[in-house]
């Protein structure tokens, strides 16, 4: 087996991984960095983020507003000290990207422009047309090329961590092009592998978003926190789940039902004004909008299409010129995939799974309970999203906490003693034998695609926008069954070069573990909060019992063990979460009572 000695290993080459790599390189050019990614970095799913990245910019805005929007948007399940750090560092990080060349959209006088986004009181979303993630990712990737200490392991698939002497000391990866294993030693490891949306059937995510890093940490005893909170984005393409950015509504788009009625006004988001005001109607938060869709469907006020019920995202009144300027990618997606010209016809949309709010438990410095192991980005739960993420907070998170993770991993690596290479290699060889076993097994009769489909369907059935104990239990049972059946998975391809069938099998095993953490955490949370909504007697938020983070612990051979940890409240006691006119009224009352 090949062996490479790095100081810091970063798994994942998306926005958070690249930002972490640059942070390590800048904090000490002598540190050797290994950036291990299963795809070339510019293929990572950060590329698909559309609408923008939040950071206080306007003189009318404040850090306090961004904090309040984020904590209220998360239904008070946020780590408030971490949110304070976050909002205070967004602007600096987005400016850093500007200095690195990110083509932010501009105001006529040359400053970076900002747009409105859901759940945000003031316009603070920096954007590069509607390809913000694409531009941020390519800017970070191309900038990373400047740093000779970053050695990339492109198209290397990480299959395990090596842990010795009570701390993580590297990873084992397969070079996809050859099928060969490599041990990448490092005195600290940053996981930045993104979310796990592909465990659901209809989702906005790319094929790579399979929760690999979450499963790696989880199997080594690191809890996955708040995994029941899965975001449904309200405006996605029926069938494929492809995303129509929230910026469509930030720019003034409407959501209407089969009668052409802006139905959100019936769900506490009104009043319906000709252009949506911030934190109202179409600019409400994603959980509320997806929930409103569900009710419209129940009432028979949606439109039936070949891929299920839809409502209409109406952009016609914005005019072709503005759409081409501000939403060029959306325009092309509608035209090419749906045959709809959005300047002339409404776009059919429905909610689809978009984002994993929970993830690897880390503190505000991105450190997990396993010494030497850090995590950043969607795979992590640093605590800023709570029970519902606000749109445009996640791209900023990649930068703010990618940097923190890099700086902290660098600091840890410099202080840590070198590992025992012989012990680590021995562990890596055991990993190799186990992982080779996945394709060398013969006589299996379970198809990968069948297991994957059943998993994705049961997640949609049990862990959708609204949840019931009975269906969640059925999902838990189904996942237990799938985990058992996975032992008999059949990998026909026994070869080495570009054996993607083998990799799909390994990913599927990761996915089943992560799906279990979601379903069991959901079943155990007997309240409704943010994106976790129940209709079986637990319709209300229950701060007395559940103002707590769930933590799913891996149990070999069985379902996860769920326990709970405290939520850090610094300055915003849990309050009523209201939007539209009701939200404005609640805010005034809050102000009056606090003086």
């Amino acid at each position, binding site marked *: 087996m090949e062996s490479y000695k790095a100081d810091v290993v970063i798994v994942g080459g998306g926005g958070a991984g690249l930002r972490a790599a640059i942070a390590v390189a800048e904090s000490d050019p002598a540190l050797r960095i290994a950036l291990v990614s299963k795809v070339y970095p510019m293929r990572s799913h950060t590329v698909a983020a559309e609408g923008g990245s939040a950071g206080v910019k306007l003189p009318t805005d404040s850090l306090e507003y961004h904090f309040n929007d984020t904590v209220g948007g998360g239904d008070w399940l946020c780590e408030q000290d971490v949110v304070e750090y976050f909002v205070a560092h967004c602007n600096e990080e987005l400016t850093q990207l500007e*200095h690195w060349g990110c083509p932010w959209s501009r105001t006529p006088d040359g400053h970076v422009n900002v747009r409105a986004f859901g759940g945000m009181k003031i316009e603070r979303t920096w954007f590069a047309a509607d390809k913000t993630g694409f531009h941020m990712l390519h800017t970070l990737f191309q900038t990373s*090329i400047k740093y000779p200490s970053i050695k990339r392991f492109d198209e290397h698939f990480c299959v395990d961590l090596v842990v010795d002497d009570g701390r993580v000391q590297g990873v084992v990866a397969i070079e996809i092009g050859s099928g060969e294993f490599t041990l990448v030693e490092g005195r600290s490891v940053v996981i930045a592998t993104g979310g796990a949306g592909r465990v659901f059937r209809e989702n906005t995510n790319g094929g790579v978003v399979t929760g690999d890093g979450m499963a790696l940490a989880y199997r080594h005893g690191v809890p996955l926190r708040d995994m029941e909170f899965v975001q449904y984005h309200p405006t996605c393409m029926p069938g494929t789940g492809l995303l129509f950015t929230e910026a469509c509504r930030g720019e003034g788009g409407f959501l209407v039902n089969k009668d052409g009625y802006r139905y959100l006004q019936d769900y506490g988001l009104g009043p319906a004004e000709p252009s949506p005001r911030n934190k109202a109607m179409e600019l409400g938060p994603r959980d509320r909008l997806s929930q409103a869709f569900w009710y419209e469907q129940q009432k028979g006020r949606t439109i039936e299409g070949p891929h299920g019920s839809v409502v209409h995202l109406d952009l016609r009144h914005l005019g072709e010129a503005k759409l081409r300027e501000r939403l060029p990618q959306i325009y092309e997606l509608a035209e090419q995939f749906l045959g709809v010209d959005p300047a002339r016809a409404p776009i059919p949309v429905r909610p689809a799974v978009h984002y994993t709010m929970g993830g690897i438990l880390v503190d505000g410095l991105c450190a997990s309970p396993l010494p030497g192991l850090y995590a950043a980005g969607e795979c992590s739960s640093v605590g800023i999203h709570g029970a519902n993420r606000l749109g445009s907070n996640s791209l900023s998170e990649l930068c703010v906490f990618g940097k923190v993770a890099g700086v902290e991993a660098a600091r840890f690596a410099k202080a840590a003693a070198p590992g025992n290479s012989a012990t680590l290699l021995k562990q890596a060889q055991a990993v190799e034998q186990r992982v080779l076993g996945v394709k060398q097994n013969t006589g299996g009769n379970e198809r990968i695609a069948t297991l994957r489909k059943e998993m994705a369907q049961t997640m949609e059935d049990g862990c959708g926008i609204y949840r019931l104990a009975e269906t969640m239990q059925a999902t838990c049972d189904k996942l237990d069954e799938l985990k058992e059946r996975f032992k008999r998975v059949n990998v026909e391809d026994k070869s080495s070069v570009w054996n993607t069938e083998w990799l799909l099998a390994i990913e599927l095993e990761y996915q089943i573990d992560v799906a279990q953490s979601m379903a069991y955490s959901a079943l155990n949370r007997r309240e409704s909060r943010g994106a976790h909504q129940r209709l079986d007697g637990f319709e209300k938020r229950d701060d007395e019992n559940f103002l707590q983070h769930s933590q799913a612990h891996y149990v070999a051979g069985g379902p996860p063990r769920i326990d709970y940890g405290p939520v850090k409240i610094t300055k915003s006691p849990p309050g009523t979460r209201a939007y539209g006119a009701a939200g404005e009224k609640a805010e005034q009352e809050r102000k009056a009572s606090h003086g």
Partner: protein
Amino acid sequence: MAENQRTIEIEVLRYHPEKDKAPYQQVFQVPFTDDMSVLQGVQYIKDYLDGSLSFRWSCRMAICGSCGMMINGKPSLSCETFLRDYYPARVRVEALAHFPIERDLVINMEGFIEKLESIQPYIIPREARTLAQGEYLQTPEQLNVYEQFSSCINCMLCYAACPQFGLNPAFIGPGAMALLHRYNVDSRDGGKAERMELVASEEGVFHCTAVGYCSEVCPKHVDPANAVNQNKTNAAADYFLRFLAPKGGAK
């Protein structure tokens, strides 16, 4: 699946270096609906007909740049090319032209990555600025000068379209040249002189014979041919200026 399901023949170029001496064609019968892309057709083959078929893909929405293939001989993103447009005829899918095949539809892209790395694809600041000083001012007009060239998704369709790259794999090619141009004309950048040495070099712009097929196949309207041609002019000016100015003369 929807009711209007039909079956299309997809002919796939197969090659496995561990057992095949040469690539060969294999035909699959694939049920499809009107909204299915070629990528979804190929995924169907992998899931239900032959798990050993290898190809790259991820985002499904023409932004990650992974799934470029030759579709009926034309470089295309398979995620935004639809089976309905070929039915009832057979559709032929092959690895991108002009690149070494690693396996099936997977090409070796290391050469492209090396070119990308070689052009210094990052801002070399014209003037230093601290974060505390805030952003560089850049008007929408200044942004407009380079924005289209910054839209390259590195899908390499333009390389598969470029006859010169086919003849000489060392040619820097349209995609990397568009990116080089993107940084050269960014108002924040001052690194043009360094980059222009590469442009005017042996493997630089003068290999381009102005066929323009690269721009035709580009899924993001980057128009790399335009970038190459602007740099021909620049490089020519540079060539003559170097007799007059001590350091290459590029501005």
